[in-house]
């Protein structure tokens, strides 16, 4: 099933006030990166000592010797269930432990038996299961090759770039190694990094024969397909608060997921580099041997160990399943969080909140959440309210609750150093702050001025933090108040690269080791707090800016501080697609653009695009003029209203997608190539996308966002032999063609794939909660064989009862042989729903003579219908059956 979105924009590149690049390091300015990158491909100095090989049930170990300095490494190889291989390399005897990332894997990955197929003094051949899956370990030079039959799928260290800077005690001579500047201290701008542990970086190369397209490793403001980094900087993964980020740039942004996907017409694979330190990734595509295309990838990290998961696919959905089995799936969000969010820095006071709330009612635009940014607090002390502006937060929240709406307040991880602020004094007295290199509490500048940073890597700290969300602790909070974690890279205004000093200490570990994990833990602790405050009953909703692999388990992510420019609107698609590929489905960009002021046209187009992206929130910078949807004249208000209403009608569909995302780990918003893995034309498309379930299933929608002054756009409709229906006009188009679509300001070109059934709720109300009991309208889009399939998922929308008590409805809808029927996909679950089916639209239908409805109780009734011969749409009037029961509609 897929919801298919095409976004085509003319990019009006105005004067772009770019990021101040000098604030952030290039590879050359990063000592370990430049050191590692200076090493060129060639014969590896490592040799596998096969005589040390040990094979147990779960894994194989073998020592690696660095011929240059005689240092020994230990290689561990695991064959994991689900067609994955894990490769771990650490020092055999490090002088002190090296950091291994905890808490990201949901479980110790279950292993499968590995057996030696063949062995001599040069190599060992291991079976990875099946007839012809092999792993070849070559001794000198050390290298690993993963084979399917005669074909090499992937090689490690084939370019000899394995490098492991062994830990040393400063002053002790290392054999054959000369200390270089930057190894024991490094200065960037005015910031010194003391590096008491000295050089500790690691590097490894991977070769992917036959691969031209690689994706992933977010977060970067760049196209979906990764570019060649030869001659430029590598893609950087280092969570940073980048002011006014630049487009088409490998610079690091707020979050990091070290997962890379490779794809060609017959195989999709993934590489998961489990390391939370600053990381650089070089991508180089070109001709390999014998004219076969090849992509080489090289990972460089500042510290930690090499721990890499090779996900062997072979299909895109297999890779998603494999990755989900390691880091978990997208948290199933409350239904309302999939609706529309209204945010601004800042809604000034209670009256302002009330006036904006009222504005939505006056202009009949639905919304579910209104957000309060940092100004709502008492002097940027999170968990507090500004007494003058928000004297009665509970009254305000009750007012929203009365309209079945909700609120989000911001809670950032920098804590104002103020002895009269309870949160601060508690954290200080419990010793929960991150320490500076000298052992005192680390302090830096952020919104409140001088601030401390709680050590979220400490489970005790996280437990305490979670307890602060209890209704009794967070004064003024109520059950319809949720949370936003911003600045959790962490952002330190006066720190190196606007973040924390790498020599700050998290217990025994340096910030250097854990940096990219910080935001992950902040969101984890916050989400846990929300669950706990309801006694484990309610699903949390937490938005985060910083993230890491596994962050999908804790809530939503947005693309940070973008700008009101056409280019940023366009970029929102590849940025969210990239996140979806690596498990983070609940993604969105600030609608309208955060910095600067959008034209009315840009704002309308952004609403139209945002309405079809997973996380749909408008946001604006403090210094920009107000931009609530009704401030741009009645025409634009109507256009925005229509876009938001389209979102609301599709909420059942979005909810179903997230239900599946949680169960399967498949992305909600996905690139075309994921559904059409053999269609090369789709491999580089990142201005169209699908909102989809598994391939082979059905619905699809496409959106084209048209540029100003343009009268039309061209969208690629994929799928040879497939048909697509324009969801507004029901016009039918063939797949595998470039379709010219005329557009106007009101156009949001979206297409439903033939063969799919989408359930909508067409009665759009004030908020999603108000639509709970409303009836469904089914859109049955027939494929060329006259068949269609779809699903419907219903639960209470906000609790864990679907898990704990099996309280949900999950149904299969299927149209075949002129009958549409609903059957139970989960007979052991139940949920009482008042919703019923008010209308069925069959697209691409023929006129029947009669339509009858059969229900399980044996009742049979005739259903009235209307057929429009121009559009070939058959509309069944009010069949009226409950959404949770079995039924069949027969067309005769």
């Amino acid at each position, binding site marked *: 099933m897929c919801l298919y979105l095409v976004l085509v924009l003319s990019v009006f590149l105005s004067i772009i006030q770019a990021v101040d690049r000098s604030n952030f390091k290039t590879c050359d300015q990063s000592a370990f990166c430049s050191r590692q990158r200076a090493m060129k491909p060639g014969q590896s100095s490592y040799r596998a000592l096969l005589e040390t090989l040990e094979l147990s049930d779960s894994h194989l170990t073998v020592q690696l010797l660095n011929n240059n300095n005689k240092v020994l490494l230990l290689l561990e190889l695991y064959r994991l269930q689900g067609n994955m291989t894990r490769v771990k390399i650490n020092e055999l005897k490090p002088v002190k432990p090296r950091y291994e990332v905890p808490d990201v894997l949901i479980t110790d990955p279950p292993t499968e038996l590995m057996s030696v197929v063949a062995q001599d003094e040069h190599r060992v051949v291991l079976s990875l299961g099946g007839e012809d899956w092999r792993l070849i370990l070559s001794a000198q030079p050390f290298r690993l090759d993963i084979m399917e039959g005669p074909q090499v799928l992937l090689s490690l260290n084939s370019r000899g770039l394995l490098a492991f800077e062994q830990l040393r005690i400063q002053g002790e001579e290392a054999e054959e190694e000369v200390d270089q500047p930057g190894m024991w201290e490094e200065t960037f701008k005015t910031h010194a990094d003391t590096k008491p542990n000295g050089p500790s970086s690691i590097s490894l190369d991977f070769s992917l024969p036959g691969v031209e397209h690689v994706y992933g490793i977010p977060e970067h403001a760049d196209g979906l397909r990764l570019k060649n980094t030869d001659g430029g900087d590598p893609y950087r993964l280092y969570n940073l608060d980048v002011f006014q980020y630049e487009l088409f740039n490998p610079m690091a942004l707020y979050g990091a997921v070290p997962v890379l996907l490779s794809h060609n017409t017959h195989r999709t694979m993934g590489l998961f580099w489990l390391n939370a330190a600053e990381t650089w990734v070089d991508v180089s595509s070109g001709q390999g041997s014998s004219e076969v295309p090849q992509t080489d990838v090289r990972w460089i990290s500042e510290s930690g160990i090499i721990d890499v998961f090779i996900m062997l696919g072979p299909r895109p959905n297999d890779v998603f399943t494999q990755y989900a089995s390691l880091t978990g799936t997208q948290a199933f969000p409350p239904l309302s969080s999939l609706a529309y969010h209204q945010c601004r820095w800042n809604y000034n006071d209670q009256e302002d909140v009330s006036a904006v709330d009222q504005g939505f009612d006056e202009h009949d635009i639905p919304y579910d959440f209104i957000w309060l940014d940092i100004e709502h607090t008492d002097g940027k002390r999170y968990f507090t309210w500004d007494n003058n502006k928000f004297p009665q937060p509970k009254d305000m929240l009750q007012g929203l609750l009365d309209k079945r709406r909700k609120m989000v307040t911001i809670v950032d991880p920098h804590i104002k150093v103020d002895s009269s602020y309870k949160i601060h004094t508690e954290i200080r007295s419990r010793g929960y702050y991150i320490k500076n290199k000298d052992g005192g509490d680390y302090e830096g500048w952020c919104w409140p001025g001088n601030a401390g940073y709680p050590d979220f890597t400490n489970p005790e700290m996280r437990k305490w933090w979670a307890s602060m969300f209890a209704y009794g602790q967070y004064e003024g909070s109520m059950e319809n108040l949720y949370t936003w974690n911003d600045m959790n890279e962490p952002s330190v205004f006066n720190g190196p690269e606007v973040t924390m000093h790498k020599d700050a200490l998290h217990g025994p570990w340096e910030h250097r080791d854990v940096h990219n994990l910080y935001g992950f833990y902040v969101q984890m602790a916050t989400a846990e707090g929300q669950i706990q405050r309801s006694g484990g009953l309610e699903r949390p909703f937490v938005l985060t800016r910083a993230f890491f692999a596994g962050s999908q388990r804790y809530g939503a992510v947005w693309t940070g501080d973008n700008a009101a420019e056409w280019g940023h609107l366009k970029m929102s698609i590849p940025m969210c697609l990239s996140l979806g590929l690596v498990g983070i489905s609940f993604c969105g960009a600030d609608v309208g653009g955060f910095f600067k002021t959008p034209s009315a046209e840009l704002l309308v187009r952004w609403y139209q695009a945002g309405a079809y992206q997973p996380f749909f929130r408008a946001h604006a910078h403090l210094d920009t003029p107000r931009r609530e949807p009704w401030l741009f004249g009645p025409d634009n208000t109507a256009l925005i209203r229509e876009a938001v209403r389209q979102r609301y009608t599709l909420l059942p569909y979005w909810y179903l997608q997230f239900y599946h995302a949680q169960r399967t780990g498949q992305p909600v918003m996905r690139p075309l190539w994921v559904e059409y893995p053999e269609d090369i034309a789709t491999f580089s498309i990142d201005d169209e996308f699908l909102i989809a379930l598994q391939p082979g299933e059905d619905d699809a929608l496409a959106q084209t966002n048209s540029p100003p002054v343009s009268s039309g756009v061209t969208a690629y409709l994929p799928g040879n032999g497939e048909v697509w229906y324009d969801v507004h006009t029901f016009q039918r188009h063939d797949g595998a063609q470039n379709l010219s679509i005329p557009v106007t300001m009101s156009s949001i070109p979206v297409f439903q794939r033939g063969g799919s059934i989408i359930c909508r709720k067409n009665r759009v*109300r*004030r908020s999603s909660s108000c639509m709970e009991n409303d009836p469904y309208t089914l859109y049955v889009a027939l494929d060329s064989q006259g068949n269609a399939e779809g699903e419907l998922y219903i639960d209470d929308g906000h609790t864990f009862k679907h898990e704990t008590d099996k309280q949900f409805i999950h149904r299969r809808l299927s149209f075949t042989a002129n009958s549409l029927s609903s059957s139970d996909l989960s007979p052991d679950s139940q949920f009482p729903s008042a919703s019923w089916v*008010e209308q069925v639209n069959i697209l691409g239908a023929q006129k029947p003579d009669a339509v009858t409805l059969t229900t399980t109780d044996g009742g049979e009734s005739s259903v009235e219908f209307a057929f429009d011969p121009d559009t070939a749409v058959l509309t069944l009037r009010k069949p009226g059956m409950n959404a949770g029961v079995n039924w069949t509609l027969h067309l005769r």
Partner: protein
Amino acid sequence: MSCALLLLLMSLALAMGTGAAVEIQRPRGVPLSKRQFYEENKPFTCLDGSSTIPFDRINDDYCDCRDGSDEPGTAACPNGSFHCTNAGFRPAFIPSSRINDGICDCCDTTDEYNSGATCQNTCREMGRKERESLQIMAEITKEGFMLKQQLIHEAKRGQEDKQGKLTELQGSKKGLEEKVEALRTVKETAEDPEKEAKERHLKSWEEQKELIRMEKDKTRMAEAFLELDDDADGYVSVAELQSHLELDPDSDGSLTETETQGLLGGADKVDTSTFETVWSGIKDKYLSEGLSDPPAPVETPQEEETRDFVSDPDSDHYPEDYAGEEEDVEDDEEDDHEEEEEEKVPPTVQTPEKRADDEVSMPPYDTETQSLIDAAQKARDDFDEAERALREVDDQMKNLEKEIGFDFGPSAEFAYLYSQCYELSTSEYIYRLCPFNRVSQKPKFGGSETNLGLWGQWAGPEDSLYSVMKYDHGQGCWQGPNRSTTVKLTCGKETVVTSTSEPSRCEYLMEFTTPAVCQEPASLDEVLQGHTEL
């Protein structure tokens, strides 16, 4: 779902306590005004004419009409509209999407007939409250309107006063202009003889000064001669002069014989009478041997310049008449320069000598000249006085014209706000509105005032232009626009700022009550009538 017909018990009595209960049958959500379109048991034609459906499909929870007119009482149509009678209060239309959404929208609870929401009928209470507040508003309006009449009256009178004053001032301006001209003639007539007498006096003083100077010079020359004539032979010889290195014409540090001879006019020695011509050539450089402090060792070109510069103010005398503001400016500049230079070069020894020279002052004017000066001064004073008076009248007229020209509303009812200021104190700031002038904000606890905008224009909507004032071009915002303030005027007995806010960064909103916007009140009956359906 079946069609829901509703028996509506309409209380027409409202709060007035009159009238009888009437039963009127119509489908749920239909206003009485459209009742005739929904004829019972007859086919219903959608109000847009798009189709005709059986009567039992009205309010059957399925949308048949494109315009939503078949489902006025359900949420089935996206564009439907539901009518609440709200007996006891005001009837209202709500979007049909608010029917049975669990939120009480109609005070008579009729919108939540099937949602499980527990709504209280609050119409009577709301009606009562509204009547109360309408009553209060009506009273305020009434009183405000009376005040407004007064304001209009006062403004009219004020306007007339101002007009009268202006005419008066125009008259006196004419007289003053004539007076100024007459006094100018008197002044000029008195200044001619004054000028002549002063020049005469000055000339004779200059002559006298020249005599004194020459006398002094002669004395110096004689002293120099005696000083130079070391051997007291009555001649100054080359050798005797050669010791005075300061006289070196090429400033190369040595005074050669030839150079010295040149100074002596080619002679080897000169007697007192010939020395006169030599003296005139060397006196500027000559340093008396008797001075104990040596001069600046070598005269550098820089020092030469400096000396010229320092002497500038002395040589550049301003005529007394122009000694005014300008002089201060010039002085400042020169002081600056002097200071700069002084840092580099110490003052030369000659300066005190020159100052002493200047101290010789001019003798007082003789009686005749002095009386001419006194007469001229009086004429000048009289003239200045008359001119000042004329300027004052001009200013007054300008201010009056400006005020008369201001748009103070259709009946000048806002004129009383002119040159007044109104303040509102919030937790952080004191806001100050000076109508037709400016809006400002001052932090309560220290800090400087911020200009939130200068009077721009009336900015209400077309039908009530005078309900909104716009002040713009205030202090600029960082990375943002200049501050501006919108002032919303509402009817009130008092003239007072009731609230301020900053809805958008640097765009302020102020609520301001004044009787000047109070409209002529309709009678209370009319007010209430206008809000009921029947």
